[in-house]
């Protein structure tokens, strides 16, 4: 098999959007791809040692609001919660996040830290964006050890010789 390669630019730092880059990277690595992930802007959150990701249903009409417990008829209800309420009730996002985490567990979906570990185990190269670190005043010790820090030129060097390049 000839060596194929893929790069992904991860730009989002929410619990839901953390999935596509890590799922694709871990799977590509399992299929024999050389994978490079470049984390920029909010995506840099995904490299923190202390992963504390949230999901917000506010302004996200595509997100089903279902309860992860109770009888199946109850779990099936899609709660239509008005934006005004979502924005106004303190802790709404925290509750939504913990419900999502419960659903993730119930459905046998891996946690983000598990997927990230699997990527690292499979030698996926992870690069944190230096400019974003400066911009948001993030310190290197906040991020996991097994990464390097670089810039756009570093990314382009990988992307230029890669078969697949994705922006997520």
């Amino acid at each position, binding site marked *: *098999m000839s060596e194929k390669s893929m790069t992904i630019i991860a730009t989002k730092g929410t619990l839901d959007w953390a999935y596509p880059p890590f*799922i694709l990277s*871990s*799977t590509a690595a*399992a*299929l*024999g791809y050389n994978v490079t992930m470049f984390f920029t802007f909010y995506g840099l959150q995904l490299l923190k040692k202390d992963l504390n990701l949230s999901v917000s249903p506010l302004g996200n009409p595509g997100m089903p609001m279902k309860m992860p417990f109770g009888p199946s008829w109850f779990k099936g209800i899609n709660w239509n919660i008005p934006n005004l309420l979502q924005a106004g009730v303190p802790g709404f996002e925290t509750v939504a996040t913990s419900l999502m985490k419960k659903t993730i567990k119930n*459905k*046998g*979906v*891996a946690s983000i830290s598990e997927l990230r570990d*699997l990527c690292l185990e499979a030698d996926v190269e992870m690069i944190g964006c230096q400019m974003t670190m400066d911009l948001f005043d993030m310190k290197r010790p906040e991020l996991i050890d097994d990464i390097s820090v670089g810039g756009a030129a570093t990314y382009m060097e990988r992307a230029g010789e890669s078969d697949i390049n994705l922006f997520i």
Partner: protein
Amino acid sequence: MSESDQELDARGLNCPLPILRAKKTLNGMAAGQTLKIIATDPGSVKDFQAFATQTGNELMDSSEANGEFHFLLKKGG
């Protein structure tokens, strides 16, 4: 159940975990050995076909029984 060299229970796991676990198990096996995988994720049917095509491991059997999916992979050389 004993017609394979190794067995992997991937029941209850969702995409992409069955594939990742299978890959990991195959890494520790010799070429020509067979791995049986039991999964409950319906998406794994197509995924194991794609996995086999792309990795050079042969998918010798793929079947369903009682909501469980059984796969038999032969590790490529």
